[in-house]
């Protein structure tokens, strides 16, 4: 285990999942988790299981929908995809995130 790995920043898992589904289309739980790990270049410490509560929460809010299907390894799994509301929500969250990071960045760049 590398000590370089960081935790998923608080509250960003939802954003990460929405963005993943937006880029990749319908996916099942395992491939979502793998995709996040790959994108993070193995620098992220993620309990893969923790995406499931997040997926339930997103579904309850109506941002993603589920469908049963067959995975590439021939298992019955749920496929998740974005709804129209989810696409809108993603735009809002991305904008929020960018504003927040830009703000923090400004503070960090500020010189005496």
């Amino acid at each position, binding site marked *: 285990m590398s000590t370089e790995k960081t935790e998923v920043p608080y509250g960003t898992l939802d954003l990460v999942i929405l963005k993943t589904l937006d880029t990749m289309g319908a996916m099942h739980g*395992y491939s979502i988790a793998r995709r996040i790990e790959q994108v993070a270049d193995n620098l992220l410490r993620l309990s893969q299981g923790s995406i499931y*509560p997040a997926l339930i929460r997103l*579904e309850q809010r109506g941002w993603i929908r589920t469908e049963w299907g067959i995975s590439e390894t021939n298992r019955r799994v749920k496929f998740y995809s974005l709804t129209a509301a989810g696409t809108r929500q993603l735009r809002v969250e991305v904008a929020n995130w960018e504003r927040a990071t830009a703000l923090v960045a400004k503070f960090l760049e500020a010189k005496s």
Partner: protein
Amino acid sequence: VTPGRLRLWLRSLFFRRRLERELQEEMSAHLAASTERWLALGLTPEEARRAARREFGNRHAIEEDARDARGTRGIESVIADLRFAIRFFGRQPFSTLTMIAVFALGIGVNSAIFVFVNSLVNSPPPGMSRQDSLVRIRGIDQRRPGYTIGREFSYPEYREYASQQGLFSAVAAWTSADVVLDVGTHGLHAAQAGNSEENLHSGAATYVTANYFQVLGVRPILGAGLPAVAPDDAAAPPLVAVISYIVWDQYFGAAPDVVGRTLKVNGYPVTIVGVAPRRFNGARTGGSQVRVWLPLSARPQLQRTTASFLRDYDTAILGLVGRLHSGIEANQTIPTVQAIASRAAQQAAPDRSYALSTDVVALVADNYFPPSGEAPDMVGRATSLLIPVLIVLITCTNVSTLLAGLAVARRREIAVRLSLGAGRRRIVRQLVTESAMLAFAAGALGLFVIWMLLRIFDSSIPDMEIVVDWRALAFTSGFAVATGIVFGLSPALHATRLALSDVLKNAAGSVVAQRSRLQSGLVVAQIALTQPALLGMGALILEMVADLGQLPASGLADRILDVRFNTNPRYGAMDQNREDTLRRLQTRFAALPEVVGVVAQENSDDYFHVLVHPADRVAGGDVDFDTNLPVRAKAAPPGYFSLMGIPIVRGRDFDATLDTDHGAVVIGADLARRLWGTADPIGRRFSSASPNQRNAGRLTVVGVVDETKAGTSGGNGGDDRIFFPSVRLTGHLLIRTLGPAEPVIPAIRSAANTEAPELPLLGVTTLAATEASRRRSTVRVMTAAGGSGALALFLSAIGTYAVVSFAVGQRVREIGLRTALGADRQQVVRLFLFRGLRLSLVGLGLGLTLSLVVVRLLAVARGQDVQAGTVGLAALIACVVTGVALAASWIPARRAAYIDPLDALRTE
């Protein structure tokens, strides 16, 4: 919350198991896929599985998070609590039923009061269904500022409302009168009586516009109903009638072919065209149920009056109901109807500015007249609310005692759960859920019992339709759950405040059970509250017993008729003409073969003070002659004493030939005895300071009567009574008959109708009937009051019993030990009895204080001083309550004494 999200939430709630299963399946698939990847990377199967699990994280924690994510946690735990409560109560059905019954009593009393008041305020008149568009148009007369009285409408004013087509789709009008019905030989009674031609009954007629039934939404159960004829149609009016259900049932034997037959109304044959539904008695409550509905145009002929009321603005006799156009609210009509009212006032009396007005309100049973605008009697209201509130408090303390006992009995369960890590909040919530559920069940039971009782007794309440509607349901369930929560909370908090070690030590048997202070407090509260409740009831009963005492049963009462005409100036001034009419009526009645005598009664029962003339003061009386003496005055017309069967024990009656026997009075024997002892009272003098001119000045006693020996109670058999001579003509007649007076009533009505058809006859009753109905209503109220008192006493007995029982239950081991060590049974009984006694005494002290407050309140409500009788009653009640409390603790105490030491020590 959008519908879609609500749907998902509900899905999470109702398909929880399926969702959990699906999540399991998903996670297994995930782990399998992950394992495969590690295998492909060259790990052994065992290593691969472990790596996959490590990568996945703590499966149980994730499941918990998933449950939280669904957002149904709170409600799920409530459901779990309810399930647990049902199982818990199911295990002990007997004590559960007891608790529900005790609770149901208290909630039921309040629900019953609510149902009654709600029906009074919200229900339509009997026999009708509630309809939103149906309104009453009410006349208001505000001639006196700050005080309103109802008024009725003239026919021209009615026409104006009816012509407001934009507001009302229809307006109907009616007016009622007392009539004599002759159901002739059709009647059952006639057939039994041997085919007599006449079969007279007194009843009421309601003269209505043709659209009356249609507007009220009432359809005759037989026949086509009244024909559509305008009241002012010049042609001869059709003499047709819709008869009430009671008339149909009682006088026509509910014959299915009654339509088309005739009956006589005030002597005129009228054809029956319909039968009204059961219980329907018109849009105004009260009045005879023996009723016929006739066209308004038939009124002049049947009531022997003119049709001028159809034109005059100042003959206001009509009541109105209207049906609003759809989309129109009652208050939207107000400006228009008020404008009509002021126009009508101008028409009726152009020279005076009458403050007449009109309002429009939903039609309910009891709102024929507008509220008077008088300030409500707050003390009276508070007193009448006191009893139900006390009963609820007593019940609630009772249930709280039971719940507390329950919680104490479960303290080991609770302690174990607490020690296993259950949150205190969680356990409190569960206990409160249990008590709320209990209360809810009790509320349902109470309401069900009320509904059953109404089903059984509804027809005995003719003037109002008592309904259990959604308001009653909402009130009862809200009230039940609220009391359940409020009174379940404190035992729950109390029970969870235990230290585990205490409980387990207790179980080990070394420590005597910590007695619940809360329970004791509740018993004290109960004993304290029962006393004022009983006192209020007792004072009521005492008062009524006193009233009943003033109503001696009498042999003559059924031979005296009380006949009242309405001589209100509204129906014509008291002029020469009217006096002639009254005199003619008296003569006419006196001429009837069954009648012995007629006197005109003056309603002048007033109180004033007299002072005995100094020369006429004698030793021997037991009054203080120097102070004014309160007396009650009554006017006695010539012949009054003999008619009422009141014997003159000394002196003489008033001289009927003098127009007034000036200054002469007749006094009651009791007053004579008190004033002058055995000395002769005749010729002795008073002076009076009566506000009534007629009674003022020098008065001389000419006779003494003994009302207690009277054949009747002449109203009140008073002791301090002074009679004045009276020759005034009034519309209130007393008629003595030869035999029983009841059968003479139709003849009296018929005579009144032919002699003075224009004078409204308010009523004809026998004194016996009046007395009987007074007695009946007194007995009914007394039964109700006694019942409530018994209920309160019973409830507090249960409470005390429960507490001492629980105390015994907690100390079984201790008792066993004591008995084993040689304590005798008397000592054990005394141990618990003293505990009951101590609680009772504390309750007694508090209760007496409360009782004194009630005594004061009662006195204030009646505007009297505190009466010695009430104080005595309070003392008596205190004794009874203490006695009952002791008895209730004696039973479990005795049971404790018979505990077998071996059994007691073997438990646990």
